């Protein structure tokens, strides 16, 4: 690996720009994603920026259980993100369709339609778990570069609800 490639790898890891997409979510995970940019969690320390256009983004953050209406939009937006790119599925819904399983209006889970790199389960996941997931995705993206994701690569799962949280307050609330 020459010097330019190593520099590019570092820069990709240190500058993940996100595009947030809702595929029928209840808005619980969406506000947690926004909460991870607030002063308390401050994801900008990792270089994270929430972009308005999928053209600018590196990491696609998808929430929601993937309704039938959303499938086309997900595929369009995934195509609009320029490579190298990674996908983070935020919440339990895109991973398993959660409590909406077997619903006629759904066409989930998310990895039926696009390759997912990181799952952040939780209903909703904590902002620190989301930040951890984004950091993991940035690492995967930096290593992979412009190559397409390997067909047999197992997606990462980060965060574990209250057990993974370092603060003692949530252990008291959710034992």
């Amino acid at each position, binding site marked *: 690996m020459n010097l330019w490639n190593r*520099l*590019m790898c*570092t*820069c*990709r890891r*240190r*500058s993940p*720009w996100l595009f947030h997409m809702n595929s029928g979510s209840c808005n619980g995970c969406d506000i947690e994603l926004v909460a991870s940019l607030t*002063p308390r969690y*401050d994801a*900008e*320390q990792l*270089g994270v920026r929430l*972009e*308005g*256009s999928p*053209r*600018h983004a*590196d990491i696609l953050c998808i929430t929601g259980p993937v309704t039938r209406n959303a499938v086309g939009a997900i595929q369009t937006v995934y195509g*609009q993100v*320029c*490579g*190298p790119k990674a996908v983070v599925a935020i919440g339990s819904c895109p991973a398993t369709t959660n409590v909406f399983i077997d619903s006629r209006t759904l066409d989930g889970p998310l990895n039926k339609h696009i390759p997912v790199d990181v799952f952040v389960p939780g209903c909703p996941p904590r902002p620190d778990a989301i930040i951890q997931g984004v950091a993991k995705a940035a690492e995967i993206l930096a290593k992979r570069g*412009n190559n397409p994701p390997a067909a047999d690569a197992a997606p990462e799962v980060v965060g574990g609800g209250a057990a993974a949280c370092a603060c003692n307050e949530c252990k008291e609330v959710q034992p």
Partner: protein
Amino acid sequence: MNLITALARLLVFPGLLFAVPAAWFFLWVERKAVALMQGRVGPPFMQPFFDFIKLLGKTTPLREGISGLLMKAWPLLAVSAAAGAVALLPVLPSSGGFEGDLILLLALLEVPSMCIIAAGFSSRSIFGEIGSAREAVLSVSYNVVFLLAIVSIAASQHTFRLEALAQLPASPLRWLGVLAILVCLPAKLHLNPFSLPNAEQEIYSGPMVEYAGPELAMWELSHGLEWVAATGLVATLAAPHVTLWWIAAPIFVVLSFAIVLLLSVLASATARLAIDTTVRFYWQCTLIFAVLAISSVLFMRLRS
């Protein structure tokens, strides 16, 4: 000798070798100041550099035909005009070399804004078109004040040459002009409260919405260079004249930094205004000062 000085100015100081790191530094100061004002830690020092290199390594969507070519050309034109504007600043007092007057500097400073308008329309995105229309309206409103302020400064000092302006002692009228230019800078740099063309929450990023990868990197760089050129212009007009270059250069850098800090704090303390409020602000409130400045200059010239 002249050619060497010209090349040194264009490529070293205050040209590219100084201007590009300074552009990244100013972009970082802007983001960091906003973060500190919001009680956050903010991005690391190297963040604009990481963003730039990362964007260079991204792919761009395939665009065919003349509009694809144009979309590649606009950001390059904007960067080269902004770099030329920075190189024109008379930071080093020694005369000769890459010289130009205030009119050329103003023209070069205006080119990136026109490129943004054209870029939004050639991207054919509805958000881009709205952003371009807003940029055009904004440009019409602040430029009247901006140009009147520049003309009043030049008329009060009897010269359009930048070198001469930097060397002459400042008159009270020049300070009025500098104040009017400072009021126009947030609109020129698309900062809050005049961040209408690239309003993130309403029209995503306006004219830049379709740009990706290296093209977007060039837009970021041209924005940074605009920061350096615009703050440098104010620093040149406001700085005291020093003949020793090793004192003049730090004074220039410190003054530019202070202006960047001032504008960033203003940006984080205010919210975005609507387009009609912005236009009214420039045409009703600020124009009075510019007209006052230019009429008093004309009056003084008639008397003398």
